[in-house]
């Protein structure tokens, strides 16, 4: 407890709570034999190409269906399915390829990383560094630029963001800003100098492509070009946001134990495919170099040292929504995840305690 007056926490990276995070060695890792971990970390171009080839193939086929049915009511279900592959499929693949773990061959990771970044309206350079910080200081206030639900959380914001309205528009704003060579103070905290020029140029290219699509739509007097490129990032990313909201919402802040600040949720095979197995989120954060296709095996290795996985997204939301509603009244509240009896306890860590406004 400090002698500060009660207040909400400052989630910016330059504010009053921007204090040092945890040392890398302080983060808890469930024990796993080195030999087994090496097996799990192995990259496979074949597995990466099967998954991403299927994703691109389905995106192209459903896009063609949308073109073929345009003007009829059949275009609605076609757009619905196409949007999921484009908007939701791209967001998880941006993430996976950003970690560089999908393919053994580096240029394949880079090609899919840049493609998926464009499709999810993300600047690949800025987000690589933002996500690097997210892994260094996961849900550490004043350090992690990717805390999706600062307390008190906005439930309305969570649901409006199913159509990417909150963060998607922010990404467009960022695209314009970076095109002009401007960074916010927070962005300057994590995007190193040498990566800024390519970040600016990439945003210019993204913006030029999107403006061209707008131009083609105006020229052809049709929404179709925009329904194929640009808008699917909004109308199709709902599935990704629905699944991704469960990653950390309502859980502990400032605790270097991913078992207690992240969720692992079981999903059906289709959702897992779209989401690239990021539902194994505890495992992903604990061992970020394990590619998505071996995360289920990693889960089996360490699950006895982790809180029980959620049986479905609905089960996770059943816990999350009441916790977030309570955080609106009491920002000190968070869900305490139960560790199994045989699990290693969370080591004792010290980071300054804060007083919240209530």
């Amino acid at each position, binding site marked *: 407890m400090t002698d500060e007056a009660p207040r909400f926490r400052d989630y910016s990276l330059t504010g009053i709570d921007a204090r040092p995070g945890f040392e*890398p060695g302080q983060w808890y890792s469930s024990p796993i034999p080195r030999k087994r971990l090496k097996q799990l970390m*192995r990259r496979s171009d074949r597995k990466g190409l099967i998954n991403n080839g299927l994703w691109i193939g389905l995106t192209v086929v459903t896009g063609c269906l949308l073109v073929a049915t345009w003007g009829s009511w059949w275009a609605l279900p076609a757009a619905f399915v196409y949007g999921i592959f484009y908007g939701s499929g791209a967001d998880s693949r941006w993430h996976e390829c950003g970690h*560089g773990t999908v393919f053994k061959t580096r240029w394949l990771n880079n090609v899919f990383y840049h493609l998926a970044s464009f499709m999810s309206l993300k600047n690949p350079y800025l987000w690589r*560094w933002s996500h690097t910080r997210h892994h260094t200081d996961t849900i550490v206030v004043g350090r992690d630029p990717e805390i999706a639900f600062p307390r008190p959380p906005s439930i309305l914001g969570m649901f409006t963001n199913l159509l990417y309205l909150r963060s998607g528009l922010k990404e467009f704003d960022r695209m314009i800003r970076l095109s002009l060579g401007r960074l916010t103070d927070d962005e300057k905290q994590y995007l190193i100098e040498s990566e800024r020029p390519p970040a600016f140029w990439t945003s210019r290219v993204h913006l030029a492509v999107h403006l061209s699509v707008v131009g083609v739509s105006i020229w052809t007097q049709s929404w179709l070009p925009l329904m194929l490129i640009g808008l699917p990032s909004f109308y199709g990313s709902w599935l990704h946001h629905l699944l991704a909201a469960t990653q950390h919402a309502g859980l502990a802040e400032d605790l270097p134990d991913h078992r207690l600040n992240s969720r692992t949720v079981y999903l059906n095979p289709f959702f897992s495919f779209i989401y690239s197995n990021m539902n194994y989120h505890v495992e992903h954060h604990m061992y970020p*170099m394990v590619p998505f296709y071996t995360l289920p095996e990693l889960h089996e290795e360490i699950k006895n040292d982790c809180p029980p996985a959620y049986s479905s997204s609905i089960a996770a939301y059943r816990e999350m929504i009441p916790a977030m509603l309570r955080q609106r009244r009491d920002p000190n509240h968070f869900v305490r995840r139960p560790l199994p009896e045989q699990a290693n306890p969370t080591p004792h860590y010290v980071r300054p305690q804060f007083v919240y406004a209530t």
Partner: protein
Amino acid sequence: MSNWTRACAVDDIEEEDLIRFDHNGRTYAVYRSPSDEYFCTDGLCTHEQVHLADGLVMDYIIECPMHNGQFDYRTGKAMRSPACVDLRTYPVRVENGQVFVEVE
């Protein structure tokens, strides 16, 4: 002044892998390449001081286990961001089944 120090036995490291070697308060990483050569670098990633010994060796690349910063462990050259600063390398020699590193 040269200071050759025994780091490990050759069989202590699997092919295409590495181990951590601590000496005089410093941490080093000793590698065995796919072609059975041995190399040594500083043991901590130049990005955020994470132990490289927990990372993955692929051919001649060591990958940091935290953020996938990559280095060519033969030269120490940083190959992928967020690693931007090269690793320091150290001479290695193998004698009688033992790996020696010339440390400071």
